[in-house]
């Protein structure tokens, strides 16, 4: 029996790209290799060879260039978004797609019945949908000095997809969006371009403490009075706005949740 080689990639764009590079450079063939994300607690498989991949900026840019030039810009967009998803198999899914992608070029994305293409589009949809949800349901709070502060807890790493939307929308505001789970934050200073930073959870309470935002209460009032009681339909409400997205929405704070 042929031995399977498993490439353990770091959980980052560069990590996955380097894994993709090393996997194809190894010339083992797609049947005998697999990509996995190094979570630190992977279930090790017997009779496999494990190779840990160190992120390498040069290999990363080579992979990105190859996808953009030999497949298409659109394919790179899909691959990029797929890399942000929270699915455990995403590194290997992308590798499988690239086999089809490099073979058929730009038209590979139209081969919807190909399992690898289908999976890539599925990942893209998952991430795209989640980032759209947060454009809808993210809530800012006005804190000290009129700074707007929002918290999100997304499954996929959508912060970089969500922030440009708000940067375009609120160019004159100082705002901060924190991914609570990952501890990363997008910072947008007034009339400047935004950047990524990190924020420790213990600092969040300092930011929030001692501020009363009167519009929160006005919003809660509006939320309640705009519903038609004769048409109550909590099931529909839940399927339109899943509980997962309500964590930081003021209208769903305990006193409102019924």
């Amino acid at each position, binding site marked *: 029996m042929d031995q399977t080689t498993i490439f353990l990639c770091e959980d980052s764009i560069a990590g996955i790209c380097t894994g993709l590079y090393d996997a194809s450079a190894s010339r083992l063939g797609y049947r005998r290799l697999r990509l996995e994300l190094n979570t630190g607690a992977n279930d090790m498989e017997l009779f496999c060879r494990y190779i840990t991949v160190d992120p390498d900026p040069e290999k990363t840019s080579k992979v990105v260039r190859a996808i953009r030039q030999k497949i298409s810009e659109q394919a790179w967009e899909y691959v990029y978004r797929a890399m942000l998803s929270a699915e455990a198999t995403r590194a290997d899914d992308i590798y499988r797609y690239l086999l089809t992608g490099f073979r058929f070029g730009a038209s590979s994305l139209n*081969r*919807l019945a190909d399992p690898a293409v289908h999976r890539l589009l599925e990942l893209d949809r998952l991430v795209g949908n989640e980032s759209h949800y947060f454009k*809808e349901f993210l809530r800012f*709070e*006005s804190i000290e000095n009129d700074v707007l502060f929002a918290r999100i807890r997304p499954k996929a790493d959508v912060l970089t997809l969500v922030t440009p939307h708000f940067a375009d929308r609120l160019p004159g505001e100082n705002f901060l969006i924190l991914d609570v789970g990952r501890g990363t934050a997008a910072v947008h200073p007034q009339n400047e371009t935004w950047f990524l930073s990190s924020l420790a959870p213990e600092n969040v309470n300092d930011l929030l403490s001692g501020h009363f935002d009167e*519009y929160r209460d006005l919003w809660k*009032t509006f939320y*309640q009075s*705009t519903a038609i009681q004769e048409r109550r339909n909590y099931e529909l409400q839940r399927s339109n706005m899943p509980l997962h997205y309500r964590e930081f929405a003021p209208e769903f704070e305990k006193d409102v949740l019924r």
Partner: protein
Amino acid sequence: MLIQEGLTLEQKLAILSDAAKYDVACTSSGIDRRGQSGSIGNTSACGICHCFAADGRCISLLKILMTNACIYDCRYCINRVSNDTVRTTFTPEEICRLTIEFYRRNYIEGLFLSSGILNSPNETMEQICRTLWILREEYHFRGYIHVKAIPGADPELIACAGHLADRMSINLELPTGDGLRALAPAKSRKKILTPMRQIQNGITADRSAARERKKLKGAQQAVLPAALRDASPAGSVYRTVSSDPDTKPISAANGPSRKCLSSPVSPGEIADAEEVIPPRAPAPADVGSGIMPLSGSHLAGSRFVPAGQSTQMIIGATPETDRQILAVTEALYDRFDLKRVFFSAYTAINDDSRLPAIGTPPPLLREHRLYQADWLLRFYGFRAEELLTEDHPFFNTALDPKCSWAIRHPEIFPVEIMSADYHTLLRVPGLGVRSARRILTARRYQHLTFEDLKKCGVVLKRAGYFLTCSGTMYRPLRFDPAYLEAELAAGERADCRALSESAGPTGRQMSLFDDFHLS
């Protein structure tokens, strides 16, 4: 009628959003507009919902009335003059502040401003225009604004609002003129359709002007010979849909053929009323003259109602059939180029002998069926008379309109997946625009089996009864209408459970003996 003084902003908001909640449209779609430094806001053509209320309806806009004081006595309306409720009015500044502060916090996508009639239609419309003007010009708000045109207001005021808003709507109120006469004596078909026509003409003129500007720009920059440029898709072939992301995919493919079909069901109401209102103007109409100082501000060059026009009517307050309602809907799309027609299941809130008694549950399932049919008209190339006939003027409560239609047309089905054209695929129950497009794309590269269809994301729960792959059915069965109806209705029931529950219990206890024929 007493206007309450000294209410807090919160109390006013509670009263005036409660009074506005029966208005249906809360969509924020139809226009893409990027943000701009120095101002606040952008818009997104797909529309963005920001919350969902306890009734499951989307909250996208700050939906409020400017005032709930009203001189009219429309029987169905919560704000009618004869109702004894607390009356109050927002100042323009209050509306602007609420909009901006809610918008900054990402609570809303913009403002939906409607109003009771304060003293006169003109005074009301003027106050609305002032509010919008302050919001756009002083607060530099670039987000979405949906505003009601008040029937009976001067055309200049309506034109002015049109330049400030993204979408305008005038409520048709009730599906027929008879209903209107009985329940809203102060309103008439003519009063409602005249501004609707004015806005339609304004939109048409604005779009052709925008096209000219684009062409001019293109002519200066393009290196293509003129002949090639005229033949390009940006030309005039699909002119009404090219700026319309909502309807683009289907109307573009379907537009021409739809117009060819004649309409045996007379949308008489709309046609009769049309004779007394100004005609459609193919040439640019004068929509720019306004009362506000438009020149000198950025509004001088602004678009006119760029996200289109919509309307709504109340379902279940008057005795019309579904067929009449759908015919009116179709006529509105055909003759007034509306973007959307909304239906509002009547909630019995007023004690009135001419209306359903208080406590009558709103006809939610009927409203749901009408929306399904509305989709079929707009995106699937169906005509109203195909869906409902004189013998069957109401929708089947157990089946959606597309399934009912398919069962009545066994001559068309089953459809072969590899060879059927787009329009035929769209008529298969369970296949939507997206699925049909995916099938077209995928079948160019390989022979599709039912397994492949599933991989493409096509759901076969209903479509499986109507499709063949290489001549074989998904389920080994005969195409028998009675059998199909029972099968499809069983699947449908779960979808509509929530809706029909409010119309009375339809679920039933399973019985071992009856259901499994053991007795």
